[in-house]
């Protein structure tokens, strides 16, 4: 299988060429956020205070994760994806501001898939539960906002060949539906 390397920040063209089922290795800076951080960010957007966001979503990648604590001498704790549907109510707002990729696991809502088509974004999956392994591709990590949220704080990661699979592309394709079609026993 061909692997594609992507380095942030990303352009529309970078993500438009991606297709469901492709393996991608992500490099550069990515940001983390899950339930509570998303709520705060989208509350800011709704209040017209985009400039107060922890980072400018334009061309960026957000990783749905709440890492476990960092052991002494390590860069970060275990760091696997959390289930993405919980961020569905917030994701369209971020794609609208230019977010290019979200990383998580599990199905997205029709609204998010529509937003990705409209604003040129994709959704990719990391391997759920393989968190200690995933942490190896994270080269540096720091909390940049909402430290009071504990594991849910927004982190900035620098990653090297962080492995993901394209689940939803800018054409509205859905790997979760296509994959099942191939293997289901009628």
């Amino acid at each position, binding site marked *: 299988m061909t692997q594609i390397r992507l380095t942030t920040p990303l352009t529309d063209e970078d993500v438009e060429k991606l297709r469901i089922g492709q393996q991608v290795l992500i490099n550069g800076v990515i940001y983390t956020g899950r339930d*509570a951080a998303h709520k705060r960010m989208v509350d800011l957007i709704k209040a017209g205070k985009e400039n107060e966001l922890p980072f400018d979503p334009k061309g960026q990648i957000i990783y749905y*994760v*709440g*890492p*476990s*604590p*960092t*052991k002494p001498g390590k860069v970060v*704790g*275990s*760091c*696997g994806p*959390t*289930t993405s*549907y919980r961020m569905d109510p917030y994701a369209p707002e971020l794609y609208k501001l230019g977010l290019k990729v979200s990383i998580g*696991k*599990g*199905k997205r809502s029709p609204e998010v898939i529509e937003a990705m088509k409209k604003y040129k974004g994709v959704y990719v*999956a990391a*391997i*759920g*539960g*393989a*968190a*200690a392994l995933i942490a190896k591709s994270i080269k540096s990590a720091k909390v940049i906002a909402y430290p009071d*949220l*504990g*594991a*849910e704080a927004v982190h900035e990661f620098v990653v090297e060949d962080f492995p993901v*699979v394209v689940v939803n592309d800018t054409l509205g394709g859905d*790997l*979760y539906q*296509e*994959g*099942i*079609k*191939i*293997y*289901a*026993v009628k």
Partner: protein
Amino acid sequence: MCQDTGYAVIFLELGQDVRIEGGDLYEAITEGVRKGYTEGYLRKSIVSHPLERKNTGDNTPPVIHTTIVPGENLRIVVAPKGGGSENMSAIKMMKPADGVEGVKDFVLEVAKNAGPNPCPPVIFGVGIGGTMEKAALLAKEALLREIGEKNEDPNMAALEDELLEKINNLGIGPQGLGGRTFALAVHIKTYAAHIASLPVAVNINCHAARHKEIVF
């Protein structure tokens, strides 16, 4: 392994000849959870109120299920439970006429609905019978059984095999990306039911199935 080190679910089996002196047993277990999650660099995933949602900072309180059994031992089973697979679990109060076919349909519906979300491959714990809360507890207890260990009731063992095949034939596969191994096992636990009810609970456990027990 996984960053979600879970809700600390504790099963306590207290032998009726055991006498615990001084202090508070539940407080002691809570302290154990606090220490384990803090000193062991495990994630603090618990908020004190489901609607106000403020993190307790030490992963307490645990959920403790206690049973009194004959004997003079104290058995503690720790079964931390991740949120992703717990959220894909479901319970349904069926009618007796729905029968075994109804149970199968419901389990398959839960599997389909879960898809990639609970980090497949997963284990299905199915609790059938009792009251509503009893069925839910049976489903969770069923997850404690070792994979590969057969159900003692031959009818239920056959139903487990049939459900496992049907679930895997959905084609959801590992990580939900398509394939034939969505579930590693189906474990059923039953209990007497009311003449009017057929409660069925399905509790899903991801492949990060972490269980540890200690007997005093």
